[in-house]
C-alpha cells in the first residue's frame, strides 16, 4: 500500500506543470551559471599562473599570490572579491589585505554575464527551495480541497503511512531534481580543460550536495506541515511564501544588521587616525635611523643604523598590524554574531556550510593572511641577518609561502552543527506535520 501511495504521488509530481517549470528554470540557471563561473575560474586561474611566472622573474621582490578556489565555480562566496596579491613585502609594513592585481576576467559569454551573480548554491537556496514550496503546499491541502483525501482515507490506510508516503515521494522528486542539477554542474566542471578536480574536491562536492539535500528536505517538511495545518491550498501557499521570504530573504539580512549594532566596528576615520598616531610616534626614530644607512667611511655605524632602522620599522609595522588585527578580530566577532543570530534561518545555515565546504568563505582568506604575516616575520628576521651576519644571510633562504588551508575532514567537522541544525529543523517540521495529520478532522 505504501508503494502504491509513493508511486502515485511521484507520478503526480512528475506530471505537474509546476514541477516541469521548476526543473526547467533550475536546469537553465545551473547550466548557464556554472558555464560562466567555470569560465571565470579558468580565466582567473590562468591570470594567477601568468602573474606567478611574471613575479618570479623579479627575484628581489617578495610577492604572494592567492589563486582562485576551484569550487568557486559552484559557490562563488567571497573568493572573487578579496583580492589576489599581497603587496610587495617590506620590513616597514605587514600586508593586512590583498589587492586586486590581476585583470578582471571578461566573460566569454557577454549575453549571459548578468548571471555571474548566480551560482549553484544560489539556485538551490532560492530557486529550488521555492520549487519545493510550490510542490509541497498542496500535498495535503489540495487533496482535502479536492475530496480525494477522504476517498483515500475511506480505505484501510493508516494516516501515518499516507503522510510518510507523501514525504518519501516528495523527497524523491525534489532530490531527483537536485541530482539532475548537481550532475549538470559537475559535468560542466569536469569537461572544462582548465578544471582538475581532486578526490578532496569530489568529497567536498559530495558534502555540498548532501547539505543541499538537507536544506531542500527541510523546506519540504515545512511545506508538508503548513499543508496539513491549513485546509485551503491558496492560503497554505501564501503562508509558505511569507515564511520563505522571512527565512531566506529577511531574517539573514536582519541578523547581519543586528550583529552590526551589537558588535560595532570602529569607523574608518578612527582606524586611520590611530594608524597615523603610530606613524607619528615612530617617524622621528625612523628618520634618525634612516639618515646614515650607507656610510662608506664608517660601515660599522651604517650597519648599526641599518639594524636600528629595521627594528624600528618592523616595530611600527607590528603595531599597525595590531590595529589591523584588532579591526579584523572585531570584524570576525561581528561575523560570528551574525552567524549565530542567523542560525534560525536555514538559508543562512546553508550559505555558511556551502561557503566553508567550497573554501570561499572569509576563514580561508584569514588563514591565507596569517600565512602572509608569518612569511613577513621570516622576511624581517632574514633582513636583520643581512646586517648582522651577511654570510649567514646569503646562505639563508626565505621559506616558501604556505598557509594552513582547512582540510576536508576539518571542514566537515566544522559544518556538522549547521548540518545537524538543518536535520533538526526537518525533523521538527515533519513531527509537527505528523502529529497534526494524525489528529486532523476531515469534515
Amino acid at each position: 500500500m505504501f508503494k502504491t501511495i509513493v508511486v502515485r504521488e511521484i507520478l503526480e509530481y512528475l506530471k505537474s506543470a509546476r514541477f516541469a517549470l521548476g526543473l526547467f528554470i533550475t536546469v537553465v540557471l545551473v547550466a548557464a551559471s556554472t558555464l560562466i563561473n567555470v569560465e571565470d575560474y579558468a580565466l582567473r586561474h590562468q591570470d594567477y599562473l601568468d602573474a606567478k611566472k611574471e613575479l618570479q622573474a623579479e627575484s628581489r621582490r617578495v610577492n604572494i599570490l592567492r589563486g582562485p578556489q576551484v569550487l568557486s565555480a559552484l559557490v562563488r562566496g567571497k573568493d572573487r572579491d578579496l583580492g589576489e596579491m599581497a603587496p610587495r613585502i617590506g620590513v616597514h609594513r605587514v600586508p593586512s589585505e590583498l589587492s586586486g592585481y590581476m585583470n578582471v576576467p571578461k566573460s566569454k559569454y557577454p549575453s549571459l554575464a548578468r548571471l555571474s551573480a548566480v551560482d549553484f548554491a544560489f539556485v538551490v537556496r532560492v530557486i529550488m527551495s521555492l520549487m519545493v514550496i510550490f510542490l509541497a503546499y498542496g500535498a495535503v491541502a489540495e487533496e482535502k480541497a479536492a475530496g480525494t483525501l477522504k476517498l483515500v482515507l475511506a480505505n484501510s490506510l493508516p494516516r501515518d503511512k499516507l503522510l510518510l508516503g507523501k514525504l518519501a515521494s516528495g523527497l524523491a522528486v525534489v532530490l531527483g531534481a537536485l541530482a539532475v542539477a548537481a550532475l549538470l554542474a559537475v559535468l560542466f566542471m569536469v569537461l572544462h580543460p582548465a578544471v582538475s578536480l581532486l578526490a578532496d574536491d569530489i568529497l567536498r562536492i559530495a558534502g555540498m550536495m548532501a547539505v543541499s539535500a538537507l536544506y531542500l528536505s527541510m523546506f519540504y517538511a515545512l511545506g508538508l506541515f503548513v499543508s496539513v495545518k491549513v485546509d485551503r491550498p491558496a492560503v497554505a501557499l501564501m503562508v509558505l511564501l511569507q515564511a520563505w521570504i522571512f527565512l531566506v530573504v529577511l531574517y539573514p539580512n536582519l541578523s547581519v544588521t543586528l550583529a552590526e549594532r551589537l558588535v560595532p566596528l570602529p569607523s574608518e576615520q578612527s582606524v586611520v587616525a590611530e594608524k597615523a598616531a603610530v606613524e607619528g610616534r615612530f617617524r622621528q626614530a625612523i628618520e634618525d635611523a634612516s639618515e646614515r644607512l650607507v656610510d662608506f667611511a664608517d660601515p660599522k655605524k651604517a650597519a648599526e643604523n641599518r639594524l636600528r632602522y629595521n627594528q624600528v620599522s618592523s616595530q611600527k609595522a607590528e603595531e599597525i598590524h595590531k590595529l589591523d588585527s584588532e579591526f579584523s578580530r572585531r570584524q570576525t566577532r561581528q561575523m560570528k554574531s551574525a552567524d549565530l543570530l542567523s542560525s534560525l534561518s536555514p538559508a543562512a545555515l546553508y550559505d555558511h556550510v556551502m561557503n566553508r565546504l567550497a573554501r570561499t568563505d572569509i576563514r580561508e582568506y584569514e588563514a591565507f593572511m596569517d600565512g602572509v604575516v608569518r612569511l613577513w616575520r621570516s622576511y624581517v628576521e632574514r633582513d636583520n641577518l643581512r646586517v648582522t651576519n651577511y654570510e649567514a644571510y646569503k646562505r639563508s633562504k626565505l621559506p616558501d609561502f604556505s598557509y594552513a588551508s582547512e582540510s576536508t575532514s576539518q571542514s566537515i567537522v566544522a559544518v556538522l552543527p549547521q548540518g545537524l541544525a538543518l536535520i533538526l529543523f526537518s525533523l521538527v517540521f515533519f513531527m509537527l506535520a505528523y502529529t497534526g495529520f494524525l489528529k486532523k478532522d476531515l469534515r
Partner: protein
Amino acid sequence: MTDLQPILKADDLSKRYEDGILALDHLNLQVQPGEVYCLLGANGAGKTTTINLFLNFIPPTTGTCFINGIDVTKDPLEAKKYVAFVSENVMLYGNFTARQNLDFFAKLGGKTALAKNDYYQVMRRVSLQEKAFDQRVKNFSKGMRQKLGISIAIIKDAPAVLLDEPTAGLDPKAATEFLEIMAELKNEGKAILMSTHDIFRAKEIGDRVGIMKEGRLVMERTRQELQYEDLVKIYIDYMKSEPLSIS
C-alpha cells in the same frame, strides 16, 4: 429484514465540535444488508457528520459506530475494509486516467491482482463511455466523475456503501442512472447509507428514510409506511417546525 445483523450501526452517536456546535445528537440507526437507508435533511442537519463518523474522519464525542460489528473508533482500519465511500463531489486525480484512478483506489481497497479488463468491466457497468476509460479525469463532467466514483465503490466490493449527497448537481438522466446502479448494489446485498437533499429519489430508492434536523433523527419511515404518507409534506412540516432545543 430486521432479523439480520446490521452492517452499519450508529449507537447513541453524538458529535460536538471544538467551536461548541452540536452537529449530531444521540443518533441511533441501523442499516441491514440489502437495505438502502436515506438520510434527508437541510444543510447542517448532521447527515455528513454521520458519514464522517462512520469513516472515522472525526472522532465521536459520545456513542459508537459499528461497521460489520466492528467498533470504528477502536479499530478503524479493520472496519474500513467493509465499507466503500462515494462523496458529493468526486474530484479524483485529474492528471490520471479513469483506469489509473480506478487502479489506485482498487489497490488501496486491497484488490491488487486486477487486470485492465476488470477495470473496463466495472466502468462499462456504470455506463461510463468507453472512450473515457483512458482519458485524463480532469476533463470529465461531474456525471462522469460520479460514475467513476461509483466504480471505485463497486470494485472494492465492500458489504456497506456510504454515499454523501451523491446525486447533487447531476442532471436528471445521470441521477436516474446513478440510482439504477444503487438498486443493483442493493440487490447484491449491500447495506447502503445515503445522505441526500433529494426527497423524490429518497422515496424512490430508500427502504427506510430518516429525516434529520439540527443533529437529531426526528423521523424515520419504512418504504411500506411511505406508501400511505406524503414524504414531501412530512419533510416540509419538519423543516418548518420550531427549532429543537439543543443543549
